[in-house]
């Protein structure tokens, strides 16, 4: 079974680096980006299966980034990451095509289970 390609987008470098390493230990192929432009570049260059996207990232609003990605390729599944209970943004994200959302700090089992569900959904088409 090929590795699920995950793109991790968050402005906290320390967070992305550590989480990426943990996901790699769990056999995911992980790329990281620390702003919206970097993330979009990686989506274009190396299409990921699942994107874990923080809603507050510099450069472009998380929701805008989500919409751009879904417009570019609707089959890429996005799991939103939010640091606080911004219900309004989460609702908007879900209606804009996000697969799931997860609150910070992330419980690794919950995250991998959501990544796997997303991957399963992609495979099932």
């Amino acid at each position, binding site marked *: 079974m090929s590795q699920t390609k995950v793109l991790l987008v968050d*402005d*906290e470098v*320390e*967070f992305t680096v*550590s*989480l990426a*390493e*943990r996901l790699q*230990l769990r056999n995911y192929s992980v790329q990281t980006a620390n702003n919206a432009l970097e993330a979009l570049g990686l989506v274009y260059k190396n299409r990921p299966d699942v994107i874990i996207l923080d809603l*507050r*990232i*510099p*450069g472009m*609003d998380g929701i805008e980034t989500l919409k751009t990605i879904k417009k570019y390729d609707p089959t890429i599944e996005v799991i939103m990451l939010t*640091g*606080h*209970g*911004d219900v*309004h943004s989460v609702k908007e994200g879900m209606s804009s095509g996000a697969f799931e959302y997860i*609150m*910070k*700090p*992330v419980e*690794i089992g919950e995250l991998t289970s959501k990544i796997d569900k997303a991957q399963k959904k992609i495979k099932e088409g």
Partner: protein
Amino acid sequence: MKNFLRLNTLFNKSGSDRYKGLKIRIVLLDAVLSLIPLFIVVTISYFWFQQILKDDFRNQLKWEIENTKQSIEYFIEERLSTIRFITSTYTYEELSDQKKVNDVFTKLKKEFPGIVDFGVIDANGIQRSYAGPYRLLGVDYSSQNWFNEIVVRSSYISDVFMGYRKIPHFAIAVKKEIPDKKTFWVLRVTIDVETLKKYATSINLRENDDAFIINHNGIMQTTSRFHGTVLETYKDFKIIPDEKTTVKDFNQSKNDCGICGYAHIKNASWIFVAVIKSTPYAKIPNIFRNELFYITLLSILFSVAVTFMLTQTVVNRIKKSDQEREVAISEIEHSSKMASIGRLAAGVAHEINNPLAIINEKAGLIKDILEGSDNLQKNKDKFLVLLNGIFDSVSRCRTVTHRLLGFSRRMDISHDLTNINDAIKEVMGFLEKEMLYRNIKLELNLKENLPKVTTDKGQIQQVFLNIINNAVDAVEEGGQIDVSSDIKDINTIRVLIKDNGVGISKDKLKHIFEPFYTTKEKGKGTGLGLSISYGIMQKLGGTIHVESEVYKGTTFIIEIPITTETL
């Protein structure tokens, strides 16, 4: 909440005085407005009524004078007619007989009391026969005025005079022509002045009143009460000879005033005079005045009572609505505070959750490595790096919690010595992350060495937070917000919060401090922030106003009074 309670007690304390003052002002105004017309009406009706009574009295007096005049005229006329009748009935020869004269005189006196004597005078003025108490037989009247008068007239009524008998009396004489002999004789009757006086004083006289008769030369024909005795000259009041009965007011001095009426008496050259100094008409107004006084007093009491009750109701309503408004405002303040705390909490959650997430991942990674490998030494350096990352994140959390504690602690403290620049910086600490995400540039131009001010730091920070939040919402990505502080004058610090956002149109600008007015989309704004900020600045003795130009940006100007010594 503590602040709100304190404000409420303050309000009630000064408020009760305010309502008392308002009540007194309304009562006084209403009393003046309702009582002035009442006093005017009462005064006018009092004088009007007095005038009516006086006019009425004067008319009555005129009527009485007229009556008295007529009875005097009738008295004279009657005697004159009787004498004429005697001259027609008896011949000169018959009446020259002393016995006959005595007989007629006795009968006459019986019918007409007041007749003193009776006599026949021949054409030469010699008394031919006489009946009466005096010895006047043979007396020659030819040189007397009345005899000269009778020669040319058919009858004559004399003024009162002393004559031979030295007692005041007047005479009625009737001439009888004897055409055959071309001569005449005169029948003369004298009448006691007291009889005349009786007629003159038959008019209704009160204590201070007087009535008498004078002749055209002002000589008293009857004895008066206060104006002299018979044959003295009457000077007090100028009588203008006139045929009509006249009633006039006179006012010669403070104690000598009243009404004088007079009437000319036909067929005698007399004037009947009544001088009325009593004022019975003044007594009636006394009664009227008492009634008027009680009616006025009752009206005043009623009016004041009604006014008082109405005012009480009105002021109570105002008070109630003021209290309701106060409660509503404090509720709004509270909910706004809650909203701003909610917003703050969301920001804080984000700020804390981010380092927590880092801690979580680093600790998780250490755990992952430990679970996957037993060679701790090999991973020692990696562990140290990860642990340092954890400590850094903990430190980040600590900063946030400290800042939050500092902010919330000041929420309830009022009037502490505050450095406005520090207050601004603390508020910016909460917002800078959001501004960073949205790529908003912040320009801080804080004047150094600003004097510290005694104010409520928490409230001032709430104002800054509200306005800078609005600025953040107003600007586009990549916009700019300038926050500056300076000293406006010796008493005031000025803080300008300027953005280059969408601006506010003039019609919206005038509403922005009104409660529940919002231009933000539904769910994003409560419409309370600016109205609360406005209220806070008023409470703290400062001001807040706004200048804005559409598409160019908005500037909020906050002025804070310096109420303590400079640093």
